[in-house]
């Protein structure tokens, strides 16, 4: 008998078109299922339906049925399903309840009514299972994103669920953090459904692949069969991302920003940058690489003029703009049009043209927070590029985006470089096109690596 069965599930959030349409599938105990698909394809909604959060937490129009371990989600809400089902969401910061790690892991056990004498042993075992035993007494605010997400995984595993649901849990992590996280997931002793945009990594640990598009399941197959299907029909998901020629089509121009022997430390903390030099020319894409904490974001902000170095020399020609990590969180105006117009002194004509360029004309009068995550990201890029800056600085622009959007972003970056703009990208993504890759944390500059 299947652990979970979804039968003809359709669901629409209040006031929206259906997010999931006529989905039927079964999940077996112990299998690892990779849930793939572009943003907005219904992956998160399906996971929330399996956890009972849809429709109990979100409301909306629900039809069909979802039964997990014999519990029908129409009559059993998420709190009743907790313990049988455990979830880890995309952003660890939005799911941390307590201030100390061990208390965070114990929180779910306390809610489930686990006998008090068993709570600390289960907590310690769960933390050890994800390699986070040493974090037990740390404050959650002091942890890195990778550590925090491992604590979230420990909190879920501590409940000893039969079904573990992971909604893009590595989207906020660097490559090393994502690998470590997924290796712990692979060792979980329960069924796992893992929604993920890092396709290669998730296929390596999956038994089965489900792909969704526009709310429907378009593929449900064992991983070997799925690899063939993906490589022929969705090559960007099948590890066959088409690499673009990164060679500049125009000769490199003059330097648009030069940093010489730059040093920086936050407050009285340790030095983040210790004598770093970098030049970005017009028409050039420079990728800044390095481990978390190597100073990529700091150097990017100094290049954009948002931070002043403690010592060293910075020379910038023309206008620079900066797109922060997770730009969808940093939208400040009441409409998409105003959001983009902010960067051009309220010029709504230019803002409207920029919205059209990014396929967001429909959103002109909508509140930015009413847009989907992908649309918010495009809005963020429109907002920093509308002023046609000489230097465009982007911080982790591919984090958490699907392969199709990543390809579109790559094409756009090449177009920007061809138009004579200097581009500096802090990234962990080796497939993002760049003319030069500069690795921080090591005195190493890798020439034309793509």
């Amino acid at each position, binding site marked *: 008998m299947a652990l979970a069965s979804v039968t003809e599930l359709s669901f629409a959030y209040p006031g929206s078109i259906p997010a999931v349409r006529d989905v039927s599938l079964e999940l077996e105990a112990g299998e690892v299922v990779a849930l793939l698909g572009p943003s907005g394809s219904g992956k998160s909604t399906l996971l929330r339906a399996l956890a009972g959060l849809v429709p109990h937490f979100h409301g909306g129009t629900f039809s069909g049925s979802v039964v997990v371990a014999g519990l029908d989600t129409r009559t059993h809400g998420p709190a009743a399903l907790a313990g049988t089902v455990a979830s880890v969401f995309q952003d660890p910061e939005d799911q941390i309840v307590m201030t100390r790690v061990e208390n965070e892991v114990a929180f779910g056990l306390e809610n489930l009514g686990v006998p008090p004498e068993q709570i600390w042993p289960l907590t310690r075992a769960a933390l050890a299972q994800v390699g986070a035993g040493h974090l037990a007494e740390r404050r959650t605010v002091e942890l890195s994103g990778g550590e925090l997400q491992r604590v979230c995984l420990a909190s879920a595993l501590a409940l000893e669920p039969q079904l573990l649901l992971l909604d893009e849990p590595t989207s906020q992590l660097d490559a090393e953090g994502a690998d470590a996280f997924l290796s712990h997931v692979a060792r979980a002793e329960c069924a796992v459904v893992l929604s993920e945009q890092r396709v290669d990594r998730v296929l390596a640990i999956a038994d089965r692949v489900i792909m969704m598009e526009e709310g429907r399941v378009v593929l449900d197959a064992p991983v070997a069969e799925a690899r063939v299907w993906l490589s022929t029909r969705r090559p960007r998901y099948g590890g066959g991302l088409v690499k673009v020629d990164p060679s500049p089509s125009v000769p490199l121009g003059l330097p648009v920003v030069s940093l010489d022997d730059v040093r920086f430390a936050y407050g009285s903390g340790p030095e983040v940058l210790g004598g770093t030099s970098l030049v970005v020319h017009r028409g050039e894409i420079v990728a800044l690489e390095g481990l978390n904490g190597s100073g990529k974001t700091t150097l990017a902000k100094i290049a954009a003029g948002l931070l002043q170095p403690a010592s060293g020399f910075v020379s910038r020609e023309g206008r620079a703009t900066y797109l922060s990590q997770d730009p969808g969180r940093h939208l400040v105006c009441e409409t998409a049009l105003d959001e983009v117009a902010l960067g051009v002194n309220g010029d709504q004509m230019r803002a409207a043209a920029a919205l059209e360029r990014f396929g967001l004309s429909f959103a002109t009068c909508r509140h930015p*927070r009413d847009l989907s995550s992908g649309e918010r990201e495009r809005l963020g890029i429109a907002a920093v590029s509308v002023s046609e800056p000489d230097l465009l600085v982007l911080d982790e622009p591919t984090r958490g985006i699907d392969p199709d959007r990543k390809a579109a972003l790559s094409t756009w970056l090449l177009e920007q470089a061809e138009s004579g703009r200097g581009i500096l990208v802090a990234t962990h993504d080796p497939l993002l096109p760049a003319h030069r890759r500069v690795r921080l944390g090591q005195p190493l500059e890798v020439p034309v690596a793509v």
Partner: protein
Amino acid sequence: MSPGPATALLAAVATAGFLIDRIWALAAMTLILIVVCVRAPVERRFIYISGALFSALGVIVISPLTWSSGGGTLLWEGPTLPVIGPIDLSTDEIQIAVVNGLRLAVVALAFSAYTLRVDHDRLVSAAGFARRSALAIALATRLVPTLERDAAGLSEAVRGRGVELHGARGYATLLSPLVAGSLERATGLAEAMEARGFGRGGATRAPRPPWASVDYVALGAAVVLVGVAARWL
């Protein structure tokens, strides 16, 4: 020290701050609270301590100018302004301003010490009743640094587009997105909590270490402090 007695002691300090009107006693409490707060991690304590002290300083500097006590020695007589009236400065006004400023410092620093030094998790866990309310207070307390980080992110995003924010009016434009962002966070957190069984009934509590003698001393000191402040200070 256990969080319950520590919170009771800090609440007593804040209450005493309202009851006391002797400058030396208020100044001593302010100094002690600064010492307590300074033991928090450097990157967290700055905003709390500086916020408390600058607010207190604002009261001390500005409030004597905004009203006339009619007593004490007149030190300076300024112009008469519309709405506010005559601007002057007397020894009485300065003394009262210092008392009020120090009171504000004591209350703000007591809250800072609660935020920075008390283990809110154990406080929630120790709540014998109204555990949900205790959790709500703990989450609201944690919201302060989150809001601070979000505000910095929003400000940086705007500056990243080449737009400079000027003055209070400029930064006030960030208020609405800040509130919207915190509501989004709150919704996400509520969803995560429900998925982890919060509110389903029959909850247990992880065992906590029993109170030590210092906890009983702190509880007694809290009662004594309020009594002394009300009676003699």
